[in-house]
């Protein structure tokens, strides 16, 4: 293996990643030559408009989508070469949450959180104990016996976060995790993610189309535009000095909102 193709330790690295969907009569390029590395312990944001390829990109990290070209290194190992068994066990070390929460509707909150543990063969009693710990972490200990249909959107996402953390993953992928939530709930979910990052040391990748999400919790950000990375850097750097057109488009209206937000600390700010 050439040195270029070797991973470099504990982190997520995408190299020359491409994804093309073939339909009957044409090819649709979803991702083209994506190069990224996400360092351990950081919160990395990927922002872009609808159709930019964000969701496909994040699904390439745990191979829910199989890339058409390129490599995905996790902790130095090229997971695109994993067999099915290693892939399934790898996925247990990467949590994921979704825009629509995707909770199991016929299971109680507690049994949703124990689900990934059941899947990896953890004993029932130990799984319950672990799930209760996590429900406490997300502030829903009292809802363990409720069913998802009885919860609000924010509560559902908290359950989903608890579930994603059940197997003690090192990485957490968030696919538009706050896009279906109102502004106040969004803020509290983002605070929870930040807390998880800081107290548990979980590396988080956040996919979003909202700049305020990036601004509120991310350390670094990549801007995705038309299947390619237009720009990448620390949030403050990209925020104060966006070089690409798409970054300026995404940031500028939000920046006005953000500075206003800082000036009026007592008010609720959300007017979009």
């Amino acid at each position, binding site marked *: 293996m050439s040195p270029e193709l070797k991973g470099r330790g504990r982190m997520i690295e995408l190299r020359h990643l491409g994804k093309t969907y073939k339909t009957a009569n044409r090819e649709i390029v979803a991702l083209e030559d994506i190069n990224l590395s996400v360092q351990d312990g950081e919160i990395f944001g990927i922002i872009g408009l609808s159709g930019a390829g964000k969701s496909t990109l994040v699904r390439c990290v745990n191979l829910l989508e199989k890339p058409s070209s390129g490599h995905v290194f996790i902790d130095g190992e090229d997971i695109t070469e994993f067999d099915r068994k290693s892939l*399934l066990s790898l996925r247990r070390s990467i949590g994921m949450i979704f825009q629509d929460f995707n909770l199991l509707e016929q*299971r109680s909150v507690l049994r949703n959180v124990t689900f*990934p543990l059941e*899947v990896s063969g953890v004993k029932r009693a130990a799984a319950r104990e672990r799930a209760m710990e996590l429900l406490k972490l997300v502030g829903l200990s009292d809802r363990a016996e409720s069913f998802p249909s009885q919860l609000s959107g924010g509560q559902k996402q908290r359950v989903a976060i608890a579930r994603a953390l059940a197997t003690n993953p090192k990485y957490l992928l968030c696919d538009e995790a706050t896009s279906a939530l109102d502004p106040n709930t969004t803020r509290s979910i983002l605070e929870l993610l930040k807390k998880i990052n800081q107290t548990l040391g979980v590396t988080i990748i956040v996919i979003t189309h909202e700049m305020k999400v990036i601004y509120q919790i991310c350390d670094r950000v990549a801007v995705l535009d038309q299947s390619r990375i237009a720009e990448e850097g620390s949030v403050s750097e990209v925020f104060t000095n966006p070089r690409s057109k798409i970054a300026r488009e995404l940031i500028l209206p939000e920046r006005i909102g953000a500075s206003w937000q800082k000036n009026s600390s007592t008010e609720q700010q959300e007017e979009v």
Partner: protein
Amino acid sequence: MFSEMLVKLWENGIIQMGIWETIYMTVLSSMIAYVIGLPLGVILHITDAEGIYPLRWVNRILGLFVNFFRSIPFIILMVAMLPVAKLIVGVSLGNRAMIVMLVIAASPYVARMVESSLKEVNAGVIEAAQSMGANNFQLVWKVLLPEAKPSLIVGSVISMVTILGYSAMASTIGGTGLGQIAISYGHQRFNPDVTWCCVILTVIIVQVIQEVGTWIAHKTDKRYSGGSAVK
């Protein structure tokens, strides 16, 4: 008020026997049809191009097979399958042969009912389970089937009512039950009240199946918050 025939049939317990036979045929055939149809439905669903284990040829061939049996009217299928019944249960007449017919006719029907119930399961939930490293067996056993359960129960009620209807037709090859009583004592011997009595009893049986099934489906469905909070 009632014809002599109806009174006699009742006094000799023929109608009561008919009720019992109809119920027992329907329930037994439904159970066997599900033993065959449920796995078929699962295979149809997961091997679909959009499924969790796409296998184009298996899906195609199984789909053709199911459609083949479903497109033959039951009364014709019954006659055509007489030799098969003889092969399986040794006779081509009577209730045992009838159960074979009912199972042959109902299994493909059940497979499609199951397939359509599984299709209702949110694809996002499957994806979430995949992201947690669930294997295909776990996806079917712990996600697809439990999440589709209320819909599967509703489907089984519809299947049972269909099978009950088939069982009446099966009296033409010597099956017994309310259908046979209606045809041979009611229709053929000009006792319309016997026929109507069988019709009303059948309607009652269908209603009971329907009500009980719907009640169970609703009771076990956790998507409706009413009353299901406490286990």
